[in-house]
C-alpha cells in the first residue's frame, strides 16, 4: 500500500512538472516573435518568409514570386471555379466537399464557399472552411488583392466536422514595370480544435514553397484562366 501511494505521488509530481514545463514553453512561444518578416527559403524563384507576432500562436507565411502571367489570369484562378469540387481538390488534395453558399458574381467580386477537408481521421475531425473570397483593385496602383477569410457564421455548423474560425489568406498581385507581375500570398490559418498549431508552424514554409513552385503554375496556366476577363480588373 505504501509503495502504491509513493508511486502515485511520484507520478502526480512528474505529471505536474511536465504540465508546468509545457505550459511555460507555450507561454514563451506565445510572447515571442519580432513581428517582422524573416526569409526562410529562396529556391527556384520563390521566396518564403515567416512572421511570428507576440500574442499570437500561429506563424504567418508569405510566398513571393514574379511571373509572366497577367493579374487577371491569377485573380480568375482564385474566383471563377470555386463551385467545383474538382477545383477544390486541385488546390487541396484532401478536399472532400464543396458547397456554394453565395455564388460568384462580377458585381460582388467574390463568393462564399464551404469546403470540407479530411484531416487525419479518426484522430482529428474533418475541417469545414466556410470562406468568403473577395477581390478588389486599387484604382491608382492597379494592385489587385484577393482576400480569403473565414466567414464561419454564414451557415449553421454541421455535426460531422469542426468549422475553422481563424483564417485570413491574402493574395496581392502587383504589376511591375518589367511587364511581369509579383504574386504574394500571406497565409494565416489555424485548424482549430485540438490540432497542434506547432505542426503548421513547423511545416508552413515548405508547404508555402511547394504551393508556389509546384502547384500554382499548373492551376493558373489552364486555358480558361488565360482567356478570362474580369470587368473590375484593369490591366
Amino acid at each position, binding site marked *: 500500500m505504501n509503495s502504491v501511494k509513493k508511486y502515485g505521488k511520484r507520478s502526480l509530481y512528474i505529471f505536474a512538472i511536465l504540465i508546468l514545463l509545457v505550459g511555460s514553453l507555450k507561454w514563451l512561444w506565445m510572447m515571442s516573435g519580432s513581428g517582422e518578416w524573416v526569409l526562410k527559403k529562396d529556391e527556384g524563384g520563390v521566396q518564403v518568409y515567416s512572421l511570428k507576432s507576440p500574442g499570437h500562436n500561429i506563424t504567418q507565411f508569405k510566398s513571393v514570386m514574379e511571373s509572366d502571367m497577367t493579374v487577371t489570369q491569377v485573380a480568375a484562378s482564385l474566383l471563377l471555379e470555386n463551385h467545383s469540387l474538382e477545383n477544390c481538390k486541385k488546390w487541396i488534395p484532401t478536399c472532400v466537399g464543396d458547397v456554394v453558399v453565395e455564388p460568384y458574381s462580377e458585381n460582388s467580386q467574390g463568393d462564399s464557399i464551404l469546403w470540407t477537408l479530411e484531416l487525419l481521421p479518426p484522430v482529428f475531425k474533418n475541417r469545414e472552411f466556410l470562406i468568403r473570397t473577395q477581390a478588389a483593385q486599387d484604382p491608382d496602383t492597379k494592385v489587385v488583392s484577393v482576400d480569403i477569410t473565414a466567414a*464561419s457564421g454564414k451557415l449553421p455548423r454541421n455535426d460531422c466536422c469542426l468549422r475553422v474560425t481563424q483564417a485570413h489568406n491574402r493574395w496581392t498581385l502587383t504589376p511591375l514595370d518589367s511587364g511581369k507581375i509579383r504574386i504574394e500570398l500571406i497565409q494565416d490559418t489555424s485548424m482549430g480544435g485540438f490540432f497542434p498549431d506547432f505542426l503548421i508552424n513547423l511545416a508552413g514554409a515548405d508547404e508555402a514553397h511547394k504551393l508556389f513552385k509546384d502547384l500554382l503554375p499548373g492551376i493558373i496556366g489552364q486555358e480558361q484562366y488565360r482567356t478570362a476577363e474580369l470587368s473590375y480588373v484593369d490591366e
Partner: protein
Amino acid sequence: METENRKKSTKTSKFIFVCASLVVLTFVTSKVWKSSGSGEWELELEKNGVEVFSMKSPGSSVKQYKGVMQSDYSLNHLVAGLIENSTLDNCKNNIPNCVDLQVLDEWDANLMSDTVLWKLELFPPLKPREILIRSHVNQDEVTKVVSVDIYGAPNRIPRNENTVRLSYIQNKWVYTPVAEGQTQIEFYQDMNMGGLFPDFLLNLAGADETYKFLHDQLPGLLNNDGLSSKKYDFIAEL
C-alpha cells in the same frame, strides 16, 4: 528540535502535494471543458424583452452568444446603424474602451461590404486589441431577412507594434422583418480576445455583456441623427 524539523518537512510535503494536485486538476479541467458542450443554444438570460442564449461546442474554449429582441427599427435604419456608424466619435461614445477607429475600405454598395479597424484598450498588463473586421451585408430576396456577417480580416494591413490583432472574430446580425417598421434583431457573437486574455472571463461575463450591448448600447448607436431616414437601393422593406 528534530520534532520541529519533522513537522516543517511534513507541512512542506503537504504544500507541494496540494500545489501539484491543483496544477493537474486545472489542466484536466481545461481539457474536459474544451471537449464539452452540447452544440445547442441554451437560454441563459431573459430580461426586459431581451433573450440571451449561449452555445458551447466541443473543441472550442469559448462559448458563443446569441441575443434576440424585437424592435421598432426598420431594416434600412438597422443597416444604416452599421454602415454610417464607423466614426471615431461613435466608437468612443458607445463602445467601452474604444480609443481609435480607422475606415480601411469605405462602404461599397456593389461589394456590399466595408472594412474597419477598431482599437480597444484593455486592463494592464494586457496589450490593446485591434479588431480589423469586414462586414458583409446580404438580403434574402424572398424573405427579406438581412444578414450582416462580421468577420476578422487581420491581414488587410500589416500589424501594429504593441497591440494584439484579433484573428478569431465571427459575429453576425440577422434582421428579420416582422411587420412594417418592426424587426426582430438577432446578434451572434463568436470570438475571443486573443493573446493571454483569459477565455473564462468571456465565458463568465458573455451573457451579461451581450444583454448590455443590445439593451443599453444599441439604442445609443441607432438613435443618431439621420439614421432613421436613410433608405438604401439594396435593402427592400416588407
